[in-house]
């Protein structure tokens, strides 16, 4: 297959529904002939809508779709040389397998002798030789999936669209089909556009991944690019497991996050607020004296190929993957190679930190009770005799849930009366932002808080942080 020419181009595609909801906004994409492109994102990110616009089921409100340089934006689906494998297969239940697969060829008035040959060949391709006469409902999910693929592929489309085709299959079957689809892509040389919310599937199969969120493209690149160099915190969080820390550049190739100063390879201006991403497999656990930061192992989970070890350092949590086991309660040191720290310039400086739940089922931070009942935070829950029950009436194990607090920099106030603050610390950095100063306060709990203030404070000032409870946003993590 000749590589290099664009088979399909999406230019400034926007889809807005009548109620004002924007499913896709200003989406631009070029797909080269023969590529395997995957749209990856959580549900509701606009990936299926984009696919449907390429197929012709939905019309974009703005923008243009070009196929081989020709505009096809308004062409009905039956006039596009594009075929789709639907999420729930959409096989015709009143036709047998042969008739299902022959449907497209019959529409094109292909002679019967050729149809018979093509159906036979495509059934061989999907490993269902001799299944012509079988009816749809005698097939397993995996077999129906193969028929759906065969029905689309037999038309020799220029582009094959696959809308979460493996979503309904069990794990083992899914893994098998992933490899088979990849093989099929190589064999047929057709351009594949694949939609999935499964990051592993996307990483395994694609030549190119388009990560989407809230109708916008977050990043486009090869699986390696996306995994190693995520463009923002969303991509880092969505692709693989990540440790994500807020931090600040403290010098040339030096970044401070997670209570330690690390050498990194990304050259970002000193004083910039950053988000640092470290993959769990890149976290190196050593003895406490050798580590850049120290912590205590809080959980060890065996995952087959490795152990997943959670280390608590101050108020930060670091997840590590290691082939060596660790013991809960053990003191360890944590190191990360400069190469393995991925630095992104932070646009959003929201402070995120963990809250505690005390013995009386009250939310607390740094020993201070926050005046918010847990029943307000956990949706649908109620308290009876000191025990919390969820919406379905079963008891909530408070040891198993974690509550994160997020608060914006402008909602935190600094005070000289250190003891009045929820937490105290010193100003470790400040930058003038035009109409206000942005401060970094390093707290006694080894955490960095970003605080916006219009007045000038001095470096190393000892301050207390006042955080109004009503400005806090709580998220529950199980």
């Amino acid at each position, binding site marked *: 297959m000749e590589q290099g020419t664009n088979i399909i181009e999406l230019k400034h595609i926007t889809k807005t529904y009548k109620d004002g909801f924007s499913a896709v906004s200003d989406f631009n994409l070029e797909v080269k002939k023969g590529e395997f492109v995957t749209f990856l994102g959580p549900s509701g990110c606009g990936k299926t809508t984009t696919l449907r616009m390429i197929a012709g*089921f939905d019309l974009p409100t703005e923008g243009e779709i070009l196929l081989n340089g020709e505009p096809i934006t308004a062409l009905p*689906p039956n006039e596009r040389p594009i075929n789709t494998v*639907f999420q729930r297969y*959409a096989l*015709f239940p*009143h036709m047998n397998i042969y008739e299902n697969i022959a449907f*497209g060829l019959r529409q094109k008035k292909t002679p019967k002798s050729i149809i018979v040959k093509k159906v036979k060949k495509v059934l061989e391709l999907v490993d269902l030789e001799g299944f012509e006469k079988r009816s749809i409902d005698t097939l397993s999910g995996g077999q129906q999936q193969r028929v759906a693929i065969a029905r689309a592929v037999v038309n020799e489309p220029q582009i094959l669209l696959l809308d979460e085709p493996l979503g309904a299959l069990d794990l083992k079957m899914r893994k098998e089909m992933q490899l088979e689809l990849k093989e099929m892509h190589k064999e047929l040389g057709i351009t594949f556009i694949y939609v999935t919310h499964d990051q592993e599937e996307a990483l395994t199969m694609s030549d190119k991944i388009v990560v989407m969120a809230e109708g916008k493209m977050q990043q486009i690149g090869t699986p390696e690019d996306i995994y190693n160099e995520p463009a923002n915190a969303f991509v880092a969080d969505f692709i693989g497991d990540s440790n994500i820390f807020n931090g600040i550049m403290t010098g040339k190739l030096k970044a401070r996050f997670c209570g330690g100063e690390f050498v990194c390879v990304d050259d970002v201006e000193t004083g910039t607020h950053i988000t640092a991403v470290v993959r769990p497999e890149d976290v190196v656990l050593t003895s406490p004296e050798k580590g850049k930061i120290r912590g205590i192992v809080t959980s060890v989970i065996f995952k087959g190929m490795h152990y997943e070890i959670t280390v608590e350092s101050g108020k930060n949590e670091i997840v590590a993957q290691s082939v060596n086991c660790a013991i809960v309660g053990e003191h360890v040191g944590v190191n990360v190679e400069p190469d393995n720290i991925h630095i992104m310039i932070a646009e959003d400086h929201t402070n995120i930190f963990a809250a505690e739940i005390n013995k009386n089922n009250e939310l607390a931070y740094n020993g201070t009770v926050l005046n918010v009942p847990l029943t307000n935070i956990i949706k649908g829950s109620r308290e009876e005799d000191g025990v919390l029950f969820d919406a379905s009436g079963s008891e909530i194990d408070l040891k198993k849930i974690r509550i994160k607090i997020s608060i914006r920099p402008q909602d935190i106030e600094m005070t000289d009366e250190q003891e009045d603050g929820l937490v105290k610390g010193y100003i470790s950095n400040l930058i003038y932002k035009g109409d206000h100063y942005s401060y970094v306060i390093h707290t006694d709990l080894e955490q960095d808080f970003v605080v916006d203030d219009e007045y000038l404070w001095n470096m190393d000032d000892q301050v207390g942080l006042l955080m109004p409870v009503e400005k806090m946003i709580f998220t529950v993590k199980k």
Partner: protein
Amino acid sequence: MHKFMFSRKNLGIPYGLFLAVFVMAPLLVLIYFAFTNGQGEFTLLNLTGFFSDPNTLGTLCYSFGIAAVTTAVCLLLAYPAAYILATSRLKAKSVIVLLFIMPMWINFSLRITALKEILTWAEGSLAYHPFLNTVLGMSYDFLPFMILPIYTTISKMDEALLEAARDLGAGGLQAFLKVTLPLSLPGIISGVSMVFLPAMTNYVVLDMLYNSTYIMGSLIGSYFASYNWHGGSMIALILLGIVCLFTLMTRGIEEENTRGGMLL
């Protein structure tokens, strides 16, 4: 002592009794009368009599004709209505469906009386077009029974199937003929059997519209009115046979349809 045990089986007793008293017993009585004469002796005369009497055969054909035409009219009216209702994205959809069903809540004789007045006004006298009037009356009466099952099957249909057809190169009409129509067949079949069978025997509409022609229902009525229980029973039995045959036929089509045979 044998204690009465409450089991699931016992729950079936009232139902069994009901079946025995109200279904099996009348059927046996019907069969007994159909194959006996006034003296209680076995005879096939009732059967041969029915098929050798041109009047009764004529009535059978007339009934069949009325039922067939009524069913066809209902289908032609109901399918587009049901299709449009099921596929439109109208917010007032349920209200419109309700409008079609609402006449069913009004007393049937009242409806036919109203129709009678309209027809008399339009045609001058009901006597001019007895067949047409009967078909109109029955279609009006049975239309909701045709719309509802078709509407249900079409609205339950997976929209992705139509998209798949379009995706595979079928235009709007082709997609309808190859996918929507065959898949709405179960709805059509149940609609047809809910209209055709009652239309064959419902003589109230005829009566009320002053159609003096007999159909099967009125024929049985007249036999019983003149105390010919044996002849009447035989006609009822024959009608029952036709109904059974029809039901078996439609079930056959349905089964073949679900098995994946091509119908169109």
